[in-house]
């Protein structure tokens, strides 16, 4: 008999969701976490969209440890001296059932792991899984940990071991990683008094703001973000790895330039650095998703590259939760039928395909490439800002040019070919439409 029914590796949102589902189904579950507490190793772009929890933890909004409910969502397109901001605000997102929230991952991840524990899962922190245990046929039958006598056996292992997933690689589910599929997220958490944040961002109570910024990364493909916690603001950048290395720009220098931007500086000025952090993001989308199951093994969350980085939609925690829940359900089903082979675990992919996780990823499969392309990153921000500047610039005594004329002039000035513009519009329409 194995030690437990299921070992879940990694107590992030994917792992805790899987463990919670399995514990509720009556299985013995061991949730192994290498940090001293869940979330200690985790960092993200700041906004969680928890509606998927309606299915798992009804009434979650009464207790989830968030910072602020996002009622103001802005997208900023910038050049060094210009900024066009699409600034949307709705009070509906400040009341149940809410939409997005800013939150600290150590808070969220500990809360979720606590839910799994309360349902009967055992949470084992400060324990690094160093490899998979397999039987003679290659089936996964447990994990090796760095504890003395640290081998642990199970009917099933669920790898929720994050973006670098050594377990998915060891099992042969993921190949050698291509750096072009990854971005580096770097972030500064800056302390400011709550009333200063409220005033600068036009917020009341625990309303929050989330800004996504294009064109602020010094030519390294990626983007910037700025959002409000209760008494800190977080400012950071997401940077495509090969370009970051090639362009000889240090990540913290890119954040410094962002903070000095005329549209951003007044919002963050005087903030005292409380924590600097960095983490990788799997941004390759649908095409980078590894095989999701092997004999005795499932992969979920960032370990399965299920992070959605599609420009206007930047979501990860909800995809981790959704995939972790589906993995837990498929695992429970396989245990019930006593077939934990890869074929017996096929229900996992079916569940992801039936739900938002793989639906969104398939639909948006071309978006990550488009968003990180040279034109979207370098040419379009300047072109769009110049069109708007041209529109609102009063150049008397010259009469006003028509908007079509302005667009034609600025597209040409930006060096954008109409053929490329049409192509990108088509990809954009197909992805986002």
């Amino acid at each position: 008999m194995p030690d437990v029914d299921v070992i879940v590796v990694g107590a992030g949102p994917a792992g805790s969701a899987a463990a919670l589902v399995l514990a509720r189904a009556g299985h013995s579950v061991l949730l192994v976490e290498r940090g001293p507490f869940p979330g200690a190793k985790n960092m993200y772009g700041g906004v969680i969209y928890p509606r998927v929890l309606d299915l798992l933890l009804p009434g979650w909004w009464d207790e989830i440890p968030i910072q602020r409910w996002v009622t103001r969502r802005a997208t900023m397109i910038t050049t060094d001296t210009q900024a066009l901001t699409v600034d949307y605000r709705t009070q509906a997102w400040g009341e149940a059932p809410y939409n997005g929230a800013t939150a600290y991952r150590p808070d969220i991840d500990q809360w979720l792991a606590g839910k799994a524990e309360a349902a009967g899962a055992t949470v084992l922190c400060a324990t690094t899984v160093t490899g998979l245990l397999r039987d003679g046929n290659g089936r996964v039958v447990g994990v090796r940990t760095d504890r003395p006598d640290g081998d642990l056996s199970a009917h099933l292992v669920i790898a929720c071991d994050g973006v670098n997933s050594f377990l998915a690689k060891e099992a042969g589910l993921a190949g050698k990683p291509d750096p072009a599929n990854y971005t580096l997220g770097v972030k500064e958490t800056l302390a400011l008094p709550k009333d200063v944040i409220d005033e600068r961002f036009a917020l009341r109570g625990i309303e929050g703001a989330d800004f996504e910024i294009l064109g602020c990364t010094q030519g390294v493909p990626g983007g910037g973000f700025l959002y409000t916690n209760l008494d800190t603001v977080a400012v950071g950048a997401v940077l495509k790895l090969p370009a970051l290395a090639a362009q000889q720009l240090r990540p913290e220098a890119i954040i410094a330039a962002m903070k000095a931007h005329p549209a951003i500086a007044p919002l963050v000025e005087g903030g005292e650095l409380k924590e600097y952090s960095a983490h990788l993001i799997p941004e390759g989308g649908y095409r980078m998703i590894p095989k999701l199951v092997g004999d005795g093994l499932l992969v979920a969350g960032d370990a399965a590259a299920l992070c959605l980085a599609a420009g206007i939609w930047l979501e990860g925690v909800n995809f981790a939760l959704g995939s972790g829940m589906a993995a837990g359900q498929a695992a429970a089903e396989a245990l019930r039928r006593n077939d934990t082979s890869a074929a017996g675990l096929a229900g996992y992919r079916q569940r992801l395909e039936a739900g938002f996780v793989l639906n969104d990823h398939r639909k948006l499969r071309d978006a990550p490439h488009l968003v990180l392309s040279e034109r979207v990153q370098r040419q379009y921000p300047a072109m769009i800002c110049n069109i708007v500047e041209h529109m609102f610039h009063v150049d008397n005594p010259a009469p006003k040019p028509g908007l079509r004329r302005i667009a034609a002039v600025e597209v040409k000035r930006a060096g954008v070919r109409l053929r490329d513009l049409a192509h990108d519009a088509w990809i954009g329409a197909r992805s986002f439409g």
Partner: protein
Amino acid sequence: MSGTDRIATRTATAWPERSFEDRMATVDFRIHHEAHITVDGDACRGCSTKACLVACPANLFVPTADGGILFNYEQCFECGTCYLVCDTEGAITWTYPEGGYGVVFRRT
């Protein structure tokens, strides 16, 4: 005050950045006595790109006078950037630190 005085320029709003050491001092690290990442300085001597030097967010890779690289594991974010950008097979050996050790994020 004239009209032009009030226009903020990019340089006027920049403020001095704190030192990199101060930046890293804001992060909690529980340091294990064994390095979880090792760098083969000999392999690095033949590398012309040395992408790790610029990409590591914790700035832990230090070039040596003889063209090699020294690595300081103690303030590592465990992000994985270095091994992904590394062009030299076998130069960087990467594992996670012992359970309970390494970076501990708080407000991330």
